[in-house]
């Protein structure tokens, strides 16, 4: 399939990238090549085959219903952000 410029802009929006104009074209060409490659799956017959999403052999791993001590404290985690106030992460005004 052919990827158009507006498709790249849409994918950039979905991906939360504010791409520069010249980057749109460059990424567009790269993505076109990659999509061409992965589209060769078209020729593989998978009728009647169930999908596999994971190869872990076990299901439903249970743990005791207990409060577990976390590896990092609230203070340590808040220290990683640029700005915090009243034990919360501060971001610029949304509205």
């Amino acid at each position, binding site marked *: 399939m052919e990827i158009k410029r507006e498709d*790249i802009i849409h*994918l*950039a929006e*979905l*991906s*939360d*990238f*504010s*791409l*520069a104009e010249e980057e749109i074209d*460059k*990424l567009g060409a*790269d*993505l076109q*090549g*990659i*999509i*061409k*490659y*992965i*589209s*060769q*799956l*078209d020729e*593989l017959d*998978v009728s009647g*085959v*169930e*999908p*596999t*999403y*994971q*190869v*872990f*052999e*076990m299901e439903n*791993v249970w*743990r005791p219903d207990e409060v577990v001590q976390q*590896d*990092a*404290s609230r203070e*340590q*985690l808040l220290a*990683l*952000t*640029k700005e915090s106030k009243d034990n919360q*992460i501060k*971001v*610029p*005004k*949304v509205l």
Partner: protein
Amino acid sequence: MKTANKKVTAERLVRDALAKAKHFADYNIFTFIDEEGAIRRAREIDAKIARGEDAGRLAGVPYALKDNFISPRGETTASAHILEGFTSPVTATSVERLEAEGAIMIGRTNLDAFAHGSSTENSYFGATLNAYDRERVAGGSSGGSAVAVALDIVEFATGSDTGGSIRQPASFNGVYGLKPTYGAVSRYGVVAMASSLDCIGFFTKTPEDMDLLMSIAAGRDPKDMTTLPDYYGESKVGKAKKIGVIKDFDNGSVDSEIRGALKHKCDLLKKKGYEIVELTMPALKYALAAYYIIQPAEVASNLSRYDGVRYGFRSEKAKDLSSIYDKTRDEGFMPENKRRIMIGNFVLSSGFYDAYFLKAAKARTLIVQEYEKAFSQVDYILMPVSPNPAFKLGEKVNDPVAMYLEDVMSVSLNLAGVPGLAIPAGKSKTGLPLGLQLVGPRRSDKALIEFARELQEDD
């Protein structure tokens, strides 16, 4: 590997490693070196030894940590700009287990940003040079770790392997590299790339060292619900008889010297009384396409957390909440990170999901089944790791598909969850290391490591 004792102190081992790291500084192996911390830790080990206490099975052994493992020692960058300034308060389970046995991290190693790449050229900190040829790539994504072991700076290094990121750099630098069975080693504390494929493993100079590290690091971890119950230590290693080679796999793409190395090892095995069995695995031809759908889909999801809000880099151009996200992500990710995130969002988006993601998940089933069938016929499979030895710096970095083709023989193992051990297999005419991989059924890690000794030769 050399451990510390009363005569050879941990401080001596660590100082030697640090001196070698300095000597090879221009290979760009490390993103961070912790001289002070490593020496402090070595003195603690030496004090233990002096008191006659057990200092552990890795007492004073210097090692290098791929810079996508978190620990409070130094920033964890994953070689990406977007994690700039991030020092984790938390330690990865594998790091805890190694250090509980006395191992000493001397530094963090370079990788393709977020482990996206097969050459370590996609690093925000620049490429790492190959241990055997400074004009060539280290391989990737765990390039720094492979070169640190190959240049004998450290006894071992950690790595992560989502589609070949341990095995390919191991083979490009002539060392052993293990991608264990999915779930063998805890992923807790390792920067997630594609969660259904990511495996934690090691680089070593011998199979014996690999066995020791696995006996320490493998096993159930309550912090990672996808770890398998402890099986490594109890693995029964039966006598192998039949070794498979895949007949229809390489599409003629494999370098003649790597084919020669495979043939040579098969001849060696025949001489030792093993039977070589040709296998037909037609779905493997589609493994790379399936992988470059499934992996980016999981990448797009895992990397959505990097938004400049909670930790790491934040763009100075950000004025409001929405631009914190999109300017930070635009400036903070490398081009290859962006390609994978966008492809991931493409294959998952409505209208394309069935044709790409679902189809790839079905192809994955066929690949799992082909391996199951293969291991009903043979004990192990021997095959190339990559189609070529280390390539020139800059040769493929601007051509994403050419770079992806590097992974053509390594990704199917991750899709199937089976273990693979990259082993050295001689040198090319120009002196570049050649590598092969031994592949076994799930949970055969220990047997693979043992069997690798059968393939050892002086080269």
